[in-house]
Each structure stands twice: as C-alpha cells, then as structure tokens.
C-alpha cells in the first residue's frame, strides 16, 4: 500500500503542478524575450497581471468552499465606475482614498448579496451569481452609462511605476495576499473552508457554521473583486462599465490551472495566483513567438487546454504503469 503517493503530494501541495507549469512558461518566455526579467519589463508585465491575480485569489476561496462566482466581473465594473465617476480625472489623492474605501465596501456588499442568496436561501451558486452579474453590470451601467471619467494620472502612475527595492509593486501585493492566505489556511476558518467544500453535510453535523462559512467566501470574493477593480482602474485610469465582464471566465480558468478543483475542498490560493500569472505569460509567449496572426486565438486556447489536460495525462500514464 502506498498511501503517501502522488495523490497525497498533490493534496498537500496543490500548487505543485501550477508551479511547474509557470516555470516552463517562464523559460519559454525568457527564450523568446531575453529582456523579460529587466526591471521595466517585469514591472510592466506584473502590473498588468495583478488585477487578474487578485480576482483569481478571491475566486479560489469561493471555489474551495464548493461554490463558484460568476459575478466577480460585475463587481469589478461597479468599483471601476464608482472610482471613475466619483474621483474623476482631476480628483485629489484624499478623494481617491475615500472612494477606495467606498469601493471595498461596495465589493463586500455585493459579495454579501451573493452570499445571502447562496448560503442562506440555498440557491445554486452558478445560476445565482449569473443572475447577480446582470444586477451588478446593470448597476455599473447605471453609475456610468457611457465610458469616460477616470482617476488622476498621477495616482495611476503610482500604481504603474512604483518599484520598491527595484521589484514591481505587484510582487509585494502578491506576497501580502499569500501571507494572509497562509495565515488563514492555518486558522480554524481555513479548516472550515476545506470541510465545507469537501463535505458540507458532514461539516454541518460536526457543528461547523456552514452557512456563515459559505457566506464569508462570497464576501471575501467580493472584497477581492473590489481590489481587482481598484487595480484595473489604476492600470487603465479610466471608467467603463463593461471593463470587468471578460475577466470572470479567465479568473475561473486561472483557479483551475492553479490546481484548485472546481468540485471544492481541494487546492489553495497560491496555485490560482500562479495560474493567473501563467495565463499572462502564455499571452506573452504567443505574442513573442511570431506565429501567424490568424492562428493566435487557436494556439492560445490550445495551450490552455493542454495545460489543463497535463495533470490528467500524467495521472493516466501513472495508472497505466501500475
């Protein structure tokens, strides 16, 4: 009997495969673009990846708890339109801070609405958040019907160009996110998350406050989506009610590439963070490999499918050998 095997390891280090994938992607990217680790290149890449990294981290929490959040893009849009309309292109840093707080509140509120319907009314997550995604994008359009507005360029530049100790700002944000996750992972709440995602009924019988745990995952996701919304607003400097919409499905792909199972209870947040970076790097690879334009979409999607399939192929080969 080999109980401490591959499965055990994948369970313990869910990000393992995601990291291998990232390293492979980085190596390919480096071959194609030798200056990719130069300070400027690194920074310009990381600041672009950061919104998706934050979004994927929040999505990962929901998915770990056994749910899914299709409304994160809508929340990003709300935050973006709030900042773009309320701070404005000529706003002051104080105003920015105020509305950053308001945005975070809005994200938490939106997450709480999802959580209320899913945890307390026990509606199915995928269709509920699909419905609320209409609410949220609709609300964003209500705030800002036509693209426009924005935040002051100086504030956006802080986001774009801050590189403490020569490292991109995003590195620090990622480090903070991962540290917080590692802490949460080793608290009771972390255990609750895995228990609820793994077997909600057993968790309930064990006196885990299942409803509140579920609720909180959506609140966390709403909060992280708000952070992502702030990041993308800082990146783009402008307002557009549809800005978040295409981000939702990417965030789910990032989570899965990061080794967190959609069935819940397996994985973590580090993997999805790595997954989000990997997706960005794949885009770079496509861009620097000079493949025929018309093949770009196809090749990119195929690479993603192959990346998703790789763990399965390895498992299949392993099983054959046994």
């Amino acid at each position, binding site marked *: 009997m080999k109980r401490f095997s591959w499965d055990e390891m994948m369970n313990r280090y869910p990000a393992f495969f995601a990291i291998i994938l990232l390293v492979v992607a980085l190596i390919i990217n480096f071959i194609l673009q030798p200056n990719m680790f130069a300070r400027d290149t690194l920074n310009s*890449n990381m600041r672009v990846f950061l919104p998706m990294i934050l979004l994927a981290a929040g999505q990962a929490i929901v998915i770990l708890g056994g749910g899914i959040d299709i409304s994160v893009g809508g929340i990003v849009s709300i935050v973006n339109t709030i900042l773009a309309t309320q701070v404005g292109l000529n706003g002051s840093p104080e105003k920015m801070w105020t509305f950053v707080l308001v945005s975070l509140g809005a994200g938490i509120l939106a997450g709480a609405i999802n959580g209320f319907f899913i945890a307390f009314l026990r509606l199915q997550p995928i269709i509920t958040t699909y419905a609320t995604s209409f609410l949220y994008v609709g609300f964003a359009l209500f705030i800002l019907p036509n693209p426009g507005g924005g935040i002051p360029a100086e504030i956006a530049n802080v986001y774009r160009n801050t590189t403490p100790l020569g490292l991109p700002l995003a590195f620090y944000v990622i480090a903070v996110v991962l540290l917080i996750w590692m802490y949460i992972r080793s608290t009771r709440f972390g255990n609750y998350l895995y228990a609820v995602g793994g077997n909600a009924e057993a968790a309930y019988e064990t006196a885990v406050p299942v409803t509140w745990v579920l609720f909180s995952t959506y609140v966390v996701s709403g909060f992280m989506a708000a952070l992502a919304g702030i990041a993308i607003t800082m990146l*783009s400097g402008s307002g557009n009610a549809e*800005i978040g919409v295409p981000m939702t499905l990417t965030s789910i792909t990032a989570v899965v590439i990061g080794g967190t199972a959609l069935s819940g209870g397996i994985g973590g947040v580090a993997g999805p963070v790595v997954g989000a970076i990997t997706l960005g790097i794949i885009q770079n690879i496509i861009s620097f490999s000079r493949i025929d334009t018309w093949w770009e979409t196809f090749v990119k999607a195929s690479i993603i499918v192959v990346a998703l399939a790789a763990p399965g192929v390895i498992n299949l080969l392993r099983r054959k050998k046994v």
Partner: protein
Amino acid sequence: GTPATPTTETQATQPPQTGQQPTQPPVESKGPPFTIGISNPFISSEYRTQMIASLIEINKEYMAKGLTTELVIESADTDVAGQIQQLQNLMAKGVDAILVNPSDVNGLNATLQEAVSKGIIVISVDQELNVPGVYNVGIDQKEWAKTSAKWLAEKLGGKGSIVLIEGFPGHPANVARMEGVDEVLSQYPDIKVLAKDTGKWDEATGQQVMSNFLAAYPNLDGYWTQDGMAIGALQAVIAANPAKFPVGVGEGRCQFLKLWEEVLKDRPDFETIAVANPPGVSPTGLRIAVNMLLGKQVDKSKLGGVNGLSFVIPVPIIVTKDNLQQGLEICKDKPDAYLLDGIMTDQEVLNTFFLK
C-alpha cells in the same frame, strides 16, 4: 442577453476633454525598413478580420519596396489589461509605429503616452481617442449616421412611425451615431419614434428585436439601424411578411446587397440604403504611419477632432436603389461578409493630409 464582449465594431467621437496640447517628441531619424505594430483586442467580428487582412495586404506593397518589415500583429479577444499587455509587448519589440484599435476610450491613455514618449508614432484607428500625441484615423461617425437618417426621413416624406435599433448603448461610436440620428429627426416633427432598443451590434439580436417590434407594431413605416443588425432586421421583416415593407436602413455589406436584390424580386418598391463603414480606415492609417516615418510632414490644418490630431476619412460609398448594381458588381468576387470598403492610395493620402 449576455454580458458579451463589447463589439467594438466602429469608431467614435468622444466628449471633449480639458484642452491638452498635443506634445510631439521629435521622431528619431531612423531609416527604413520600419517595423509597424498592430494592437487589436477583438477579433470575433468580420469588420476586424477584414481590417487585419487588408492591413497585411497593404503592408506587402511597402515590404516590396523595402520600406517596412512584416507587421507585428497582436490580435486576439482580450480585455483592457490584455490590450495594455499587447501594447507593452509591441514596445518591448521595438516597433516604430503602432496602429491601435482601442477597446476602451481612456483605458489605454497612460500606456499610449508611454509609447509616444518613446518616440513611437501611435495612431488610433476606428475609434477616436483624446490622448496628447496620439493620432486618430477614421470616419466621422455622426455624419455617417446622419446620412442614412436623413435619407430615411426624406423617403418617408417627413412623416410616419419608425423604430430605432442601436448598437451597444454607451459605446462611443453608438453614442455619436445616435446623436446624429436625433439631430436629424428633430427636424422632422411628424416622424414618430415608437420604440428604441439595442441589437447589441449583432445580426441575431437585431433580428430578434425587429421581430418583437413587428409583432407589436404591425403597421410600421420605417426603421433606422446600423451595421450588421440591418441584415437581421431585414430578415425579420421578410419573415413577418407585412402587407407593406417598412422603409429601412441597411448596411454596406455584400450579404446585405444580395438580400436586397432578392427582396426586390418580390417587392420591387422596397427601399433601403447602404452606407459603407469601411474597415479600410486602418490600412489608410498604415499609409499615414509609413509616410510619417519616412519624414513627410503632416498638414496639421487638415486634421480635426477632439485633440486636433484626427484624420477624417470620407465615407467611400453609399448604395441606394439607383446604384445597387454597381455595388453588386464590387461584391462579385468578394466573400459575403465583405464590407464595402475604401482604402486611400498612397498618393491620395499624401495629397489629402500631408504638406507638399
């Protein structure tokens, strides 16, 4: 209704911003061949595929002359962050000029300015931006819409009930166009707009919306719509088969012209109009970029737009019943989704926009 990827099919004028003066860094004198980058964040539309295809085609001319290298094209469906990444990658590849079809009117500002500050010539095609140093190349959306709206009003003899099917509400191009339509209609008080809805710039939705309208208003006199939705609307009319076909606005696409020809067989009195919305503005933009790289001086007095850096391209072709055959002639060996186009020649570009 899905929160779909915004169909940035067309360009726009944009609400004027605080008057910033165009700041143009000196273009380094570097000889040919030049490398030109393309950033396109949305490829799932025929307008865009035709745009990319004709860019590649036109660039071949310059390559043959040794003026440019192969285009560096970044073209895939992506979001705002993705397009910023596209632009950053183009900069990292050291291109001399960038043609960008922006997915967001302001979202790329900082990135584009960075490119401008690196001495790269940046041209926004199909969508007017207000960024210092960034040129715009495209048609005048408002005028474009007014052409067909005026035609419709006159065909109706200045009275009747109509419906409007617009593109994405809030999309700059749509906003400009609807402004134009409103402007025209305000001069015809006897034309009543019964309803207005979005067809999301796609044929199927346009068809769906039009069938709803036809069910609710069986005695419609006319309808105004734009782009791909027009063919959907006409299909809906054909399916509903009302006693009298409403007068409708069409589009400059071969498919539409062929359908039009077919309808005329049964309904010889059917009236519609097709005003081209040419993807060719992008290759025209490419010509402008190459000439600028070659050191030719732009005649600033010929430029307009919000930041005074817009090259306004005239609408190349308008098809009505009178010249339908001519339009069909163009379509003879073109694919069905082909949009009636017009790419200015090098000479036309030089004559129109550059100092002699």
